[in-house]
């Protein structure tokens, strides 16, 4: 489990990547991050939704209510054009950051 300090810097990056290919609703986003991180990263409702709304207000993602037969209506989030640009930029930045940190602390990839 990572500390909240460690999570904070990467939250937006994780959310943006999770919805990169398909639109997803809030519960799905939280679950996907948990699954892909092997259960290491879990977002509570109190931290996930503020992030989602902040990114929506900035115009990086857009929420849309969708109704499907037999299923409750849900708000699905997708990336906007600006969101894709931010994702690409943040990814690059994160990769460079981790490489730099690894070099300092002496971690190498096998």
């Amino acid at each position, binding site marked *: 489990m990572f500390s909240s300090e460690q999570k904070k810097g990467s939250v937006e990056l994780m959310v943006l990547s999770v919805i990169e290919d398909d639109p997803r*609703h*809030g*519960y799905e986003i939280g679950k996907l991050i948990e699954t892909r991180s092997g259960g290491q990263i879990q977002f*509570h*409702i*109190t931290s996930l*939704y*503020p992030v989602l*709304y*902040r990114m929506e*207000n900035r115009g990086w993602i857009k*929420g849309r*209510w969708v109704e499907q037969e037999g299923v*409750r209506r*849900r*708000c699905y989030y997708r990336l906007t054009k600006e969101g894709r640009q931010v994702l690409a930029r943040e990814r690059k930045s994160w990769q460079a950051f981790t490489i730099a940190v690894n070099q300092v602390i002496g971690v190498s990839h096998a």
Partner: protein
Amino acid sequence: MRDWHTFVRDQLELDGLKDLREERIIDELALQLYDLCQEAIDRGMSAEEADQWTLSQVPDWTEFSHTLSDVERPNRRPAADRWIESSEERLRTHGWGARILADLLQDIQFTWRSACFNPTFWVITVLILGLGIGATTTIFSVVKGVLLEKLPYPEPERIAFFERPAFSPPRFLDWKEHADSFEHLAGVFSVDLDYTGGDQPWELHGGLMTPDFFELFGARAELGRLFSADDYAGPPTRAVLGYTAWQRLFGGDQDVIGRTMTINGLTREIVGVLDRSFRSPRGFSDEETDIWLALDPRWGAFFDPGALILTVYGRIAPGFSLEGAEEELNGKIVALAADNPALHSDPEDGPRFVHLAGLQNAITGDTRSNLLMLLGAVTLLLLISTANVANILLARGFDRIDEVGVRSAMGAGQGRIMAQMLTESAIMSLSGGVLGIALAAVGIRAFEVLNPGNIPLIDRISLDWRVLLFAGGISILTGLIFGAVPARRAARLDISGMMHRGPGGGVTRDRGRLRNTLAAIEIALALILLTGAGLLFNSFIRLQSVDPGFDPGGLVGVELSMSGPRYTDDFMIDLVRRVDGRLEGLPGIEGVATAITVPFQFWGSRRTGWLRWEWETPDREEREIWAMVHPATADYFALLDAQVRGRMFEPGDMTGTQVPVVVSETFAEEICPDEDALGKTFYGHGWDEGITELKIVGIVSGLHAWGLDQGSELTVFPPWEMYGPGNSMASLLISTSGVSASAIESIREAIWAEDPDMPLPNIFLLEDRIDASAAVPRFYAALLMTFSIVALLLAAAGVYGAMIVTVGRKRRELSIRTALGADRRTLIRLVLYRSGRITIAGVVTGAIGAWLTTRFIESLLFGVTSTDPFTFLIVAFIMTVVALGASLLPAWKAAMSDPMEALRQE
């Protein structure tokens, strides 16, 4: 499972967020909690355990709410909205009075949102109202300042003005001695005076005043003193300066008291300066007096029954009304006439009674009728604006039927619905009022600066609290008027009808009757306004077409001021001869003549010259004919290119005992009613010692010297060389081949070359003067025409709007008719028939209204009566064409539309 939606709504505190955004967040969080709870149950927890576990996912709702509120700052409602809602909530917890206020706040908020959604509609209606309210407020401000506000004197309602331009000092003194109904009786002789000895010659507006004048008007001294009894003995050598003149001539010098000024060649001592705030009655309608001299009415040439020089004012004694004072004085005049018939009686009419007028009425005079006419006109414009907005709101009310129906179904009572719509109307009209006040501020400033109507007391108009109160009052009134009908209609909606018939089905009996009636009312009111404007315009055109009786082209007038001891008769004749010689030598000068005044030097009721009234006909029969005696040189009429039958004076005429004269045709008809007056000799009293023989050598016809609307005056023109120099005033008439600024300057220099001390304030073109004399009727005609055009457009818009609704309602019927083979012309005729009915109703009503109301502007018309049939017909025709034309567009659109498409949409 718990109702997570209700739970989240209760726990979450997102104050100030827009409603939809808040709902969305609640929905989403509730869904999340539902999913988490379901997940817990799927993992094997019991319902209760899952519920508890889910609750633990948000341990602190307050903190969560704060976090979300921070994030959602961009989605907050405007501060005003939040304030209104929170105030509303607080008020609803108090008594019924506070709840009414809460409802009002809610209605205001609703109206604001409605305005944001429909800005175009609001802009148009506020603009229409603003125009109507602005025009009305402007004219009200003028009326208040000019007609209603009291003059700045103590108890101004007790000051009377003696009607007739001027009286002689002997008559005035008799009244003063015998009248009981006046506390003070004072006269003033207004005359222009020459001030020399300063850095340049000045012409000053002088006032020679009798005792009591300053007391009557409550004047005070800024410096020194006002006149005492001793100052009124003998020649007028003591002077009091007006405040502005003191500033202008002496730079506000505190040591001016005791200094002397040379006025008309005589030394006068300054004893005081008037208070800054003092204004004489003359100062309200003309230029303020610069210098006051103490006049002893018994002194020298002033004590002459023929010296009609005094303008007389009286302060009525307590216990007397204006009518009572007039009656009392006239009673005394009867006795005076018995004692001194020559002074106080006419041979034919008996005692010379006086007629008094309140001072304010006397100052405002003709302007009163003009201003009241304008007030009537703007009131009509305001009514038309109101009717127009009512029509627009009715149409809009029709469109909002569904919205109102939903509100009613959700529990809003008739009263609430009406209150909301009335609030909307009130806000709309108050917004129009605010715009109107802004427009009025501009309008008032324009009136002050331009004063195109020569309105007296114009500097007293202002946008003060009374005017603002008036503007606010009419704004609210118009809002109630135009808002009441749609509000009442909306409140009486048939909800079940809506439910059954679908959208738009809530209207049971709207046949557009009310809209048609409003459109007809607008046409009627616009027609009244247009008729008044048409009459004024007609009158102005007739005035302009009056032949002044001379050709003003290239004519220049120069007012000479020759008062003072050095201007002896011989000096004046010699001076004029030398000046004429210099002027005639200038390039472009074709001729120079001299007279007391030249045509249009003054106009209206003002006359300058001397009046004589005692004549004897060729048969030696005594006749009283009030005529102007106007000395002029022989070439005067030739330069004017006036129509003269007979001839002008010749040098040989002036040597015998007979005086050669040219007379106006109107005088000739009086003095010789039964025969041709040309060549006849008649007799005048009061010209010289004894009786003067006057021989008519020429008769001039059609000469309008005092205004285009003044007719041809009874005038006798003797040679200037014989009778001109006795007057301190003379004027030159200069004929030029073309006038320029440099030519004017050359004329000034030529005169100064012969007399450097003569002030020359007045050099003018006669064409400019004729134009200026028509400035007032032109202004009122133009203003009324402007109002009428606006009214016409509004009325046309009213008809257009009514026809749009009619065509809309009749679409199905019209489509069926088209489908069944009716051609487009039939459809157009059908629509025009309906609009024709509205138009005819409006035109007939308007014509009757115009016939009843235009009589009030009879006194403002020239050459046309207030019921001139030609004007009425033209106006009715224009109104009909415009109204039918406005309905043509909806008719055309209806005829051109595809009937199948229309039926499909139905």
